[in-house]
């Protein structure tokens, strides 16, 4: 896959997000003044469930919830340009794959090319070439004629990942993509993501509530507190990937884990629901 023409950046400036209360008597602030600049690399957005990290990710994807202004205040800039709608450079991958059950694996991966937006930009031959290439990259070449119902959860997530990669995005926004997978499959998918990233370094924003996952994948870990979300911690991990089990049990890694957990507990006493997976 080709390398991006220029390094891409995402800049969040004083992002505040509020939702009206259910009883209509006020507002609930879920994101409280987050400012952040993201550079190419794997950026982990770590926080307890329901802390607003998905909301932030959706803002970067330009996907807007219904009936609420997003963000309430602040701006999201991609390459210095305000991001207000779905963006060609940023593609999202969700936990619930969103694969069409009536289409085969290759048809699902080629799905974006059914849309006028991409049909006018990518010709048929190029689309076919990209689909083949991407299927190979995620290891699904042998399953191209299968239906999603014939695949495992991990394979379905590979399809979803391939559907994003086929567009050659410079930004990959992943919303707890491996959260529904069993531990072993999650490990395999993490490996795959690293492999794909090494081949085509881009800007990955990876939302998770799994501390172990954050430490296994991240070049940078941004820890969010909950309700409202604020940046509780933000640090880099220099250890090269793939990170061995030995590193993960090293004093360095264990300290990082303790640091994250302490931050989370301090920031959100009693509310946190975090997972430390094996």
């Amino acid at each position, binding site marked *: 896959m080709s390398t991006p023409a220029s390094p891409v950046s995402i800049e969040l400036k004083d992002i505040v997000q509020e939702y009206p209360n259910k009883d209509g008597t006020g507002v609930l602030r879920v994101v409280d003044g987050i400012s952040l600049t993201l550079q190419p690399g794997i950026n982990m957005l770590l926080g307890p469930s329901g802390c607003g990290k998905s909301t932030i990710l959706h803002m970067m994807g330009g996907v807007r919830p219904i009936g609420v202004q997003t963000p309430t205040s602040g701006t999201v800039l991609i390459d210095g340009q305000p991001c207000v709608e*779905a963006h*060609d450079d940023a593609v999202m991958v*969700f936990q619930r794959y*969103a694969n069409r*059950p*009536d289409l085969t694996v290759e048809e699902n991966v080629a799905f974006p090319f059914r*849309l006028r937006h991409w049909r006018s930009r990518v010709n048929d031959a190029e689309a076919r070439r990209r689909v083949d290439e991407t299927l190979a990259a995620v290891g699904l070449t042998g399953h191209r004629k299968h239906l999603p119902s014939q695949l495992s959860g991990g394979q379905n997530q590979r399809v979803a990942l391939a559907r994003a990669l086929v567009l050659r995005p410079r930004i990959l926004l992943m919303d707890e993509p491996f959260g529904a997978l069993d531990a072993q499959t999650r490990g395999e998918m993490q490996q795959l993501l690293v492999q794909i990233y090494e081949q085509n370094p881009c800007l990955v924003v990876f939302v998770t509530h799994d501390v172990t996952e954050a430490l296994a994948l991240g070049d940078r870990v941004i820890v969010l507190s909950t309700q409202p979300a604020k940046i509780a911690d933000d640090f880099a991990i220099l250890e090269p990937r793939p990170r061995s089990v030995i590193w993960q049990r090293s004093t360095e890694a264990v300290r990082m884990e303790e640091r994250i957990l302490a931050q989370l507990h301090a920031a959100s006493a009693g509310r946190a629901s975090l997972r430390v997976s094996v």
Partner: protein
Amino acid sequence: MAEPTTWNPYAPLSAQTTRTLGIGAVVAVLVLWAVISGSGLVSPNKLPAPWQVAKAFAYLAWDGENQRSLLFTATVWSLGRVLAAGALVVAIGIPIGVIMGASPRVNAALSPLIDPFRSAPVVALLPIMVMWFGIGEWMKVLFLFVGAVVYLIPMVRDAVRAVPQAYWISARDLGATPFEAVRHAVLPLAMPRIADAVIVGVSVMWTYITVAEYVNAREGLGQLIQNARRFSAMDQVFAGIIVIIAFALLSYQLMRYLKAKMYPWETKL
């Protein structure tokens, strides 16, 4: 060895047992019916004996004296009306339902006009339909259409709304226009439940066919029953009803089969 027979609603039943119980129940009713008729307790004018119904059925199927099959003609007419109304229901009801499902605004505007008719007596509309559309074929087809479409539209709407929002968001994120997101991401997933709506719609039409043919029908299963009742030919009334039930069942099974062929990927709950 006898299997433990504790009552368990989730225990699967073998095909053999299902068939035996089903056929057994039908046979039991037939036997009971025969016994009641044979005992002479109930007048044949009220309850004709099974063999009388069978004889009536044979007569309706082929009337050798006049070289005609009343049943065949009647069935063709009724089937034709159901098919014509069915085509209208599909062509008009599905698009309206899809638009209602895809647009909360349209839904808010149309659902008070459509939803109440699900529980309202559609049969009561028959006099109005006669006034508006006369007593010809149009009235009968439109009556079936109205009877079925008020069930179908809300079901189609709900089918569209039941598709998880994730599909919409994902398609929009990939650059789909709202129309494309509905067309390529939401609608394909709603199709199995839309097919269910069509199946219900057609079943409803079979229940209304007799009513539709109450007024000025020269041919049709409803008319056949109506006519037989007028001449107190209860055996023919029974035969006609059985034919309608058989056709309703047949078309239901056929549509179920087609649906399973068309949407094999539908997730089983």
